[in-house]
């Protein structure tokens, strides 16, 4: 069994997933996203869609060399707003 990692869903994502906070059983960020996103909202064709900010403990995941996650980590997913 992997760690249960806390995921905070911001903005409209909390409506899409029906919760503002979800615990996901995963030891890696990409595994976590696959398990979370069964409706292909965030991931499409094995790629994270543009338009989302994914923070691991407040740091953009693209700035991290290591994408492993543990139960003390907090993942935040924010859709970037582009309407004007």
């Amino acid at each position: 069994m992997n760690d249960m990692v806390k995921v905070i869903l911001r903005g409209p994502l909390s409506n899409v997933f029906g919760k503002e906070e979800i615990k996901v059983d995963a030891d890696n960020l990409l595994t976590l996203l696959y398990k979370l996103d069964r409706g292909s909202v965030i991931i499409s064709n094995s790629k994270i869609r543009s338009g989302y900010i994914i923070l691991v403990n407040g740091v953009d995941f693209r700035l991290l060399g290591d994408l492993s996650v543990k139960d003390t980590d907090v993942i935040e997913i924010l859709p970037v707003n582009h309407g004007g």
Partner: protein
Amino acid sequence: MIIYSPSYLINDPQLYWGSVTIEGRNLAYYSRQLLTLGLEVQERIFSLKVLVAGCGALGSTLVEELARLGVGDITVVDPDLVEESNLHRTHLFTERDVGRPKAEVCSERAREINPDVRVTPVLDVVDNSNAEELIKGKDFVFDALDNVNSRLILNDACVKEGVPLIYGGVSGEYGSAMIVVPKATPCLSCFMQPSEGEDTCETVGTTPLTVTLVATVQAQLMLEALRGQVREGLIYLDSRRLSLDNVKILRNPSCEACSREEFMYLKGLRIRCGIVRTDESPPPGSPKPFVRRGKEGLLICYDKCFKKVGR
């Protein structure tokens, strides 16, 4: 030149400021604001030259707020026309404005609200052919655009020229805002990627309340910067929960704009939604704007023509 009035008037702000002018401005208009911001900040506001990119819901609200604050010189750029579906979320547009250029209506209303303010409408899109020219000599650029690709072009131009950019975006009852101070804070390209597909052209709803909140946060970020405080990161606003959070965003060491200084979006980035430039010309002698609805969307022509696509 500052002209001071007799000191006995100072106890009555209305009388006092009503008899003081700065560069020809009657300070009575600003008397309550001066009590809050002080003369030093107000003088800085008077001297500002800003660009508001986009004059939709966010842009028109920003133009109103900046005019009321007393910003000296506002340029507002947008080639779009007022539509009935815009009216619910815009303060400056009314039914009689439907069919008129948004930037012209915004400018007229802003001058009515505060005749001290110089407001210049530019009936054009923001793309890689004009972004650098539009921001030249500006103290702040407000991003009130409606698609990520235009934002990234504007971001490249601002980072390259060292002009502070204040981004705002809305979606439903959510919004975000961020100030970019080139080379000092993260920029939009640190965390936004261009849109490759057409799927982001869908119509996104919102409310006038969320729009006003986001535009107000953008204007407040300008005031913060004038006071010497620069907030790093993204402000995420949820008007449904009435929450406003600061989200930590770090500078990306491989960012094409603020780290690598490649400014690749200024070399060309296709804008897939909203209004784009087209090679078509208006028929000779046609009125301005000349408008024609076709299969591919709406053609809007002044001296130049634009095509409204994807919405």
